[in-house]
């Protein structure tokens, strides 16, 4: 059943003992394995210099020479993983993959539909070497359907899901987004699914194949929009930072270049708090602002007044002052803010690790804070093929000579 031959009584990380074969590529493909690796699974990334993952390409962090070990995205999402170089186009390469799968629990992939099948490494192929293997495929639109062959990038999912059509200023055409929201989103959903399947396998001995599309994983996080249309036929429109029952509400300008604070007032109690923070500004006495209905009716004027007040102050000062009065407010943090922010630092949201190419670098840590099995170790993203010899020797007993020969033959490259 399980690859564990005995129960480990005092495991240190929650997923210790779990082995994952990871074919994931680009951000989305890395995100699932990253979760599992952080949590202590042995995540073996199968990759090849012959068909270099775009996540290892692009402008290097330092200098101008292309370097597969200097992509900042890769440094973040490949951390804690092991890299084994295998050329999947070779027959021996496929055999080695199968030998690895035979002693693994989970396989993760996000190639285009049928790509692994064409390589002879589909779920049905792998099940022959490991009867209870758990495998997930999570490409853009899933394994089947009229648009299954769609190509795209992270932001594609935001467009296909309807999210982009709603991001914009009130009454203005959609602006859309350029952040690849769908990538970490699908990675998280995929990690959940394979761990749930693993849970079932531990009880029943049965493996599982999961087909998850990035598109539907994204839709899964948009319940509010979908339900409004399903119930009322209402299609949401760009509404900026307005809210149906909050006023004042929005993102307000502060002192400095591109500095903003988010403020939300939803109740009379919160309005009273805002008024206390405003101090001597008598405009807030106005009867029209006294209750929720009145504030919603006068929201434009209210927001303009608040903006006047915030413009003269730093965003952190405004947020701190408002929070002291029980009002939900926060500075809109920029990347430089996030690096030094005291709350994010206290939570180890970012950690500094060493990488052979860069000495010290910041990568994101683990937001999941476990009381008994804390996640505190972050090993640098592997160099391409860094662990080929170590893994193949330890996990499937290949000799150093055999590994050297296969490398020369272009199999382990």
């Amino acid at each position, binding site marked *: 059943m399980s690859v564990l031959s005995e*129960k480990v009584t005092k495991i240190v990380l929650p997923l210790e003992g779990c082995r994952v074969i990871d074919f994931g590529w680009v951000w989305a493909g890395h995100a699932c394995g990253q979760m599992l690796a952080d949590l202590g699974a042995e995540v073996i990334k199968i990759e090849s210099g012959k068909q270099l993952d775009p996540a290892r390409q692009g402008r290097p962090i330092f200098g101008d020479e292309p370097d597969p070990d200097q992509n900042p995205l890769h440094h973040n999402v490949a951390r804690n993983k092991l890299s084994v170089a295998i050329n999947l186009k070779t027959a021996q390469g496929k055999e080695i993959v199968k030998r690895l799968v035979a002693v693994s629990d989970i396989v993760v992939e996000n190639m285009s539909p049928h790509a692994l099948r064409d390589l002879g490494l589909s779920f049905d192929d792998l099940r022959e070497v490991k009867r209870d293997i758990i495998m997930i495929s999570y490409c853009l639109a899933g394994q089947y359907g009229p648009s299954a062959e769609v190509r795209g990038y992270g932001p594609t999912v935001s467009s296909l899901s309807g999210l982009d059509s709603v991001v914009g200023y009130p009454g203005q055409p959609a602006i859309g987004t350029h952040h690849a929201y769908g990538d970490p989103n699908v990675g998280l959903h995929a990690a959940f699914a394979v761990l749930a399947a693993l849970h079932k396998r531990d009880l029943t001995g049965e493996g599982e194949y999961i087909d998850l599309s990035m598109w539907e994983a994204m839709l899964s996080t948009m319940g509010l929009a979908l339900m409004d249309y399903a119930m009322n036929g209402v299609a949401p429109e760009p509404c900026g930072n307005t809210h149906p029952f909050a006023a004042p509400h929005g993102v307000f300008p502060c002192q400095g270049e591109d500095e903003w604070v988010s403020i939300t007032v939803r109740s009379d109690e919160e309005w009273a708090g805002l008024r206390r923070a405003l101090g001597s500004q008598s405009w807030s006495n106005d009867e029209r602002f006294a209750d929720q209905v009145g504030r919603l009716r006068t929201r434009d004027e209210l927001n303009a007044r608040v903006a006047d007040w915030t413009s003269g102050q730093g965003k952190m000062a405004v947020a701190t002052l408002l929070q002291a009065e029980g009002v939900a407010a926060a500075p809109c943090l920029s990347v430089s803010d996030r690096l030094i922010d005291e709350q994010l630092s206290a939570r180890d949201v970012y950690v500094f690790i060493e990488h052979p190419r860069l000495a010290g670098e910041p990568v994101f840590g683990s937001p999941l804070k476990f009381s008994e099995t804390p996640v505190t170790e972050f090993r640098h993203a592997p160099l391409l093929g860094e662990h080929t010899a170590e893994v193949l020797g330890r996990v499937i007993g290949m000799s150093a000579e055999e590994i050297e020969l296969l490398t020369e033959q272009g199999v382990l490259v």
Partner: protein
Amino acid sequence: MYSDEQPHSERTIINDEKRYGPLHGLRVLELGGMVPVPYVGKLLSSFGAEVVKVEPPEGDPARRYGPFPNDEPDPEKSGLFLYLNTDKSSVTLNLRSRGGRRMLDELLPHYDVILDDFVPAVRAELGYDYEAVRRCNTRAISLSITPFGLTGPRAHWKAYEDTISAHSGLTMYSGLPSREPLTYPFFLSEYQAGVAGAVGVMAALHARDRGRQGQHIDLAIVDAIAGYHLGVSLIQYVFGRRTWHRQGRQARGGPYPNVILKCKDGDYRLIAQTKREWKRFLHLMGDPAWGEDPRFQDRLKMNERYGDELDTLVGSWLTSYTKQELFEMCIENAVPFCPLKTIPDVFADPHLAVRGAFVQADHPRAGLLQYLASPFKMRNSVTAIRRTAPLLGADNPRLYENDLGLRNGDLVRLRAMGVI
């Protein structure tokens, strides 16, 4: 059960409890409302776990959020609640009453997973912390999801979704450079924390199955976004590389194209990392002469210097075609561009129909509605919606008898005392 090729379009509600999900047998107590904790519960329940919502007597706040049919508020017809709480039971419990707080302690031993969204002030008020849970159940996995987490100088800060988005850094990512940045809508950040929390729960269960006891997981929504979504930007910043700054519908920092342009009936996203993709698109446009312009060969420079001009050239071709026409052409020619679908487009999408992405379900008060089906298509398990969202407290009799041996007379008394 389902082969790769079988279309899921005919899937409806599965009423056969024998087709078990992967988490059948797992018992989950859900002490949280709105989005983050209920999304954990929804993921677990969709995989077959038994999820019991413990709602305050006035109900989960999501019951008051909407949307509502015809905009008529009704705590049994809130769209957000209906979506997030499929396959769950509901009991009411007033945790602020002594009797209610005691009943919670009596329930805890019966559950594998306890989910809460209690911020530090609420934890103090209720006398609820992991130690209190552990005393009742040493094997329970206790997950707390709060805006800032339970530690840190701002753990006491008040937050709604926009507050969280701002502090995570996500708000700065979208909008026009000349105007205020735009928050993401629809509680997206809250869903991220939910799914991350679900991963944490499964990992903790894995540890528990291997000799560990229960434990606590403290998860901040801000951390989930600032980390998983926006962590990448820090290396670039620290090493003096260009970092992202919002530019409206365009992104000029990388190769051309990376922009949203108008087409005949809406908006279209053009994004191509590789030269080959760009060439395929030029070919799709009939290889216009301007494609050979020496100014338009270095795709980084052409984006930076001539982006607007190129947008006009490309745009004039795009406006001859609809979103759907373009989408089909792009797929056929392996061009990675796509339409900005609207929500109505999504409901009508033929690919999603074949995927069985939407399913009809009948709710006793809200009636027949279309719901998004579970996105996980599994070979050996079912993750379909089995039951629509529960009516408030509908499971009081069944659950309180099952777990605590209470009878109808007890419940009448407890209700009169304001405990349930």
